[in-house]
């Protein structure tokens, strides 16, 4: 266990600014490994990691899997359809069974908020939260932070999270991470998709996207889940795009250029205009690249890797 990070990574809320900087700094040397012809270092050789995905995910699961494989861990993927959950097994029993197989780490994605903590409290293995309900998605926020930091200092940056903040674990993790690192944070969206009392977390609230764009240096544009219309949160995709869509026209009126992030998968023409997503200020694909590096850093630190050796680790030396 790393003294720096503890046993698990469940969310960014309990971490300090120092913890966050440690993870981001550790990710830096790992970025380069993915650029090599042979994308593999032996730092997690002999470690077994289970990717326990109770909820559909493509990019997060693949990103974790690449991170694990590039660190030479042995990995097993358990997806909902193939698991015993469908046979009615409880998460407690799943946890006990994993423990009995003597695994080292679990990466868990689950539809229920708190599921990662629930698991972490019951097993000795390290647990990494890959998204729990509407609670947190810490590695996504870390990769967002890393991507912003590649372009400008986070401290003092004005970052606005746009869209369905109410249901978004990405938004919550981003809010904690950004505030701790000294950014100014705002949210913008229809009030029906903003949590009651969100301002009490220390964020500014914009009702209109035009005002948010005028204020912000960075926009993190959230995906609008299509089922939100059926539940009556917003009337239609068309109207959402007209009122809240991040478009070239709106960005053109901004006093300066904005960095555009999106956690994916995108609904082009709903929350974001394709010309913006593919435009010069979009860092959406950089986020994906950084995702692998940040997850390598998290796994490395939780497995007991020492931050000052991360640079050396990529050379292939034993820890």
């Amino acid at each position: 266990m790393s003294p720096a990070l503890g046993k698990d990574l469940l969310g960014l809320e309990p971490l300090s600014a120092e913890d966050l900087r440690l993870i981001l700094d550790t990710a830096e040397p790992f970025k380069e490994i993915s650029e090599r012809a042979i994308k593999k270092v032996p730092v997690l050789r002999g470690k077994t990691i289970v990717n326990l995905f109770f909820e559909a995910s493509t990019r997060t699961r693949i990103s974790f899997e690449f991170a694990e494989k590039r660190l030479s861990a042995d990995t097993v993927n358990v997806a909902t359809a193939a698991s015993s959950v469908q046979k009615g097994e409880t998460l407690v029993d799943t946890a006990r069974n994993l423990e009995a197989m003597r695994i080292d780490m679990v990466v868990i994605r689950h539809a229920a908020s708190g599921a990662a903590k629930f698991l972490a409290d019951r097993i000795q293995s390290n647990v990494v939260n890959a998204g729990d309900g509407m609670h947190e998605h810490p590695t996504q926020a870390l990769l967002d932070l890393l991507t912003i930091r590649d372009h400008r200092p986070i401290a003092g940056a004005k970052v606005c999270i746009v869209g369905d903040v109410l249901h978004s674990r990405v938004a919550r993790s981003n809010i904690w991470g950004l505030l701790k690192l000294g950014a100014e944070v705002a949210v913008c969206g229809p009030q029906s998709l903003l949590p009651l009392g969100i301002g009490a977390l220390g964020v500014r609230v914009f009702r209109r996207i035009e005002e948010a764009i005028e204020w912000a240096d960075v926009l993190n544009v959230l995906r609008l889940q299509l089922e939100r219309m059926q539940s009556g949160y917003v009337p239609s995709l068309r109207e959402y795009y007209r009122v809240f869509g991040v478009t070239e026209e709106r960005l053109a009126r901004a006093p300066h250029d904005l960095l555009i992030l999106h956690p994916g998968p995108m609904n082009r023409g709903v929350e974001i205009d394709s010309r913006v997503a593919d435009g010069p200020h979009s860092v959406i694909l950089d986020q994906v690249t950084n995702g692998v590096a940040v997850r390598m850093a998290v796994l490395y630190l939780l497995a007991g890797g020492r931050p000052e050796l991360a640079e050396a680790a990529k050379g292939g030396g034993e820890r």
Partner: protein
Amino acid sequence: MRPVLIRGGRVIDPASQRDETADVLLADGRVTAVGRALGTPDGAEVIEAKGLVVAPGFVDLHVHLREPGREDVETIATGARAAVAGGFTSVCAMPNTDPVTDNQAAVGFIVSQALRAGTARVYPIGAVSLGQRGEQLTEMGELVAAGAVAVSDDGKPVATAHLMRTALEYALTFGIPVIDHCEDHTLSAGGAMHEGLISTRLGLKGIPRAAEDVIVARDIALAGLTGGHVHIAHLSTAGAVNMVREAKSRGVRVTAEATPHHIALTDACCEGYNTNAKMNPPLRESHDVEALRAGLADGTIDCLATDHAPHHYDAKEAEFDYAPFGVVGLETALGVAITELVGPKILSLPALVARLATRPAEIAHLAAGTLAPGAAADVVVFDPAAEWTVEPAAFFSKSRNTPFAGRRLRGLVRWTLVGGAVVHRSGDAAPGR
């Protein structure tokens, strides 16, 4: 049965305006005398109550005994035993069992199981609608004839305003209250805890105060329209307390209860995804707690009721979203009430006895809640100063799902008597299971 003399206690009986040091004599299942220095009849059992409070046995208008259907988490016998351990001599069992208590045979089953158990008196509450489906009224006349003392679709609200109106009107014939669980499901659907800053942080879907308030407003309007008696179950919001207070001032026939957990705890207890703090209505914020306490103090809230809701430990050992709502409460109610209400001088001990015994008996028209000579010899003797620690493993209930585990409480039941027989004494051990 031997007569019982309860000697030298502080006898508190709000129904007969009594609060004095006295003896209480019980014989043939009745209170036969209350007074100073009563002689000890031949062969009488004597309970020395010096320094203790002697009060009418408590009455709980809101318990879930789970039988029939979930005898693995509670039975009428274990629930009634837990009741007397908490000083409750009469409990009213909600009808959301499996099958639902919506016909006279089901009511009769509960009555006969309670008689077999032979501890607390158990009064069935019948369903308002068949199967609690919110469509067709139950045969309330037959339910009452079989022993039901109220009707409720508890667990859910009475589904529509029209059904609530007709239930209030129809129940007038039988003189029983309609008890409503006030929750607008279109506002609360998917919710797991109070909607506020903590639910936002934990990423749990919230149940807004308005989900309760809009149905309380509906029910008050309908009670006003019909002249029927609505009893609002488990108030949780400041807004609902204000509405009940205002309605009472206009003479609307509305009564209300609050649970010990809602007057003691806030949504902060849900931190860490503590499923023993998951109940419906949810724990709310401190200003709601203050309003509930003020409502109990000024009589807006007539009584405390536990909403005793046993669940298997497996069921609570789950993700917060998937864990069931509800906590057990019979065995901690007195301790919580003394610690949280009498300690801070929100209620005097006589006022607390009124909220635990006198008023709930009046609301359900039970022959209980008083120590007047001739009344049933249902008595609790408790030590208002004794401190104890809540240990769920020691509960008589089959279930352990309490948010008060490990809490230090003041106020301990020493003896409970039903019909003149001792059915609980402190130190009794729950049977191992």
